[in-house]
């Protein structure tokens, strides 16, 4: 794979392309692993019959099979699948992550405190950008826009660039460890699961 990137050798190119395709297929198979886990865990929960917990497990399996059967039977482009997706999964998925907003608001109010110099800088800059992000304030106080763009384009870009350089090197090193087998201890461990 790395050879294909840097070198221009046609046969290597072809090999790399088909290996990529294999990667996609194996990845598609791997997506089923989570589902198998879910089935095993929930069958277990039903067997245990603790309180009302098993009712949730039954419901979970029912919905799972509804999606899997409709999806595989009719195909994901079918109107049936589209209907269950749009009524059930879409509102849930659309609310799940955004609902983090409430935790974020509570965290901002309660835990983001000026305990140290670090915390102070964090809070002050956070406050400035919050105000500058409000279009109403940006329209009333134009200097906020220039403060914000200075922080974003100069300060933040520079700081994140340093972090990214570090992470980039880390990733290259990770590749080194994987390719030269230094990472096998963890791979070996994981097979014990």
């Amino acid at each position, binding site marked *: 794979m790395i050879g294909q990137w840097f070198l221009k050798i046609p046969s290597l190119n072809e090999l790399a392309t088909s290996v990529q395709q294999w990667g996609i297929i194996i990845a598609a198979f791997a997506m089923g692993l989570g589902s198998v886990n879910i089935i095993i865990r929930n069958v277990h929960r039903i067997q245990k019959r603790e309180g009302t917990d098993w009712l949730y497990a039954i419901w979970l399996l029912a919905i799972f099979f509804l999606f899997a059967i409709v999806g595989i039977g009719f195909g994901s482009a079918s109107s049936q699948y589209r209907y269950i997706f749009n009524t059930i999964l879409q509102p849930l998925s659309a609310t799940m992550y955004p609902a983090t907003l409430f935790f974020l608001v509570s965290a901002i109010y309660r835990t983001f405190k000026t305990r140290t110099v670090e915390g102070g800088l964090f809070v002050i800059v956070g406050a400035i950008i919050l105000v500058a992000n409000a*279009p109403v304030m940006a329209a009333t106080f134009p200097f906020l826009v220039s403060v914000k763009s200075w922080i*974003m384009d100069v300060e933040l870009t520079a700081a994140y660039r340093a972090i*990214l350089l570090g992470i980039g090197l880390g990733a290259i090193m990770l590749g080194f460890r994987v390719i030269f087998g230094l990472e096998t201890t963890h791979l070996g461990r994981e097979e014990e699961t």
Partner: protein
Amino acid sequence: MASKQDGVWIKLQHIPREILYFLIIISMIVPLLRPMGLPITISPQTRSLFDSLNTLEPADVMLEFVDWSAGSMSFHQPGCIAVSFQAVKRGAKLVFLSTSTEGPLMYELMLEKFQSVFDEADYVYGEDYVYLGYVAGEETARAAIASDIRTAFSSDYYGTSLDEIPLMQRVHNYADYSMIISYTMGSPESFVRQFNTQYGVITHIHCGEMMTPTILPFWASGQITGLLNGGVGAAEMEVLVKRPGDAVKLTDVYSFSNILVFVFLIIGNIGFIMQRRKGE
């Protein structure tokens, strides 16, 4: 007297969170029912995307990665509509595809709103635009799409073989893509790595504001050409293509809720500082 004041500060630090949540919901409802229509300033990142879109020629192929999930539909969908509108206006051919699992259904929801634009421009499915569906493997899939799209897809989303689709007959690999744009909340860097770094394809990104800081360094270095900054960027794009829609509506929401959150942050911290001063 001091103790009475301190009492207020301590109280201010212990507003029940339900009240905060209630206030923030109100701050979103009010502007949605009573829009104000504030002026929108165009950021350089959005401007460069718009300028880049305007270089599209009628035969050019643009890859659009419909990679958002329902969670970020509120700004990715308007963003995608605005960008596609401009591309259609320039006459470019559009290839939609997904590398995230909710993508196919998100595409169909987007299409419900966008079909009229295609119809107006006499765009025919298969000749001027096409949807290929979902492919697993994330970055591996993106790499495969860049090097040979046929290793990732053998047919379009509706089951027609790629070779029977007129548009796809001349689309094979990176050399055939004029530019790509990814609407993602996942890993925007991977698109840049596989398309721009590897083959020098012009790469645009539309991601959430929360991820923008992490990829700003790549925009500064020119590895990303156009960068839409979440809902703000989508609104700017709507203004630029003169088609105000859902994203512009969101702009008013930002005004109210951001100021409210700012107030929370300040109250929480003033209370904290006052309390600590008392403790000393």
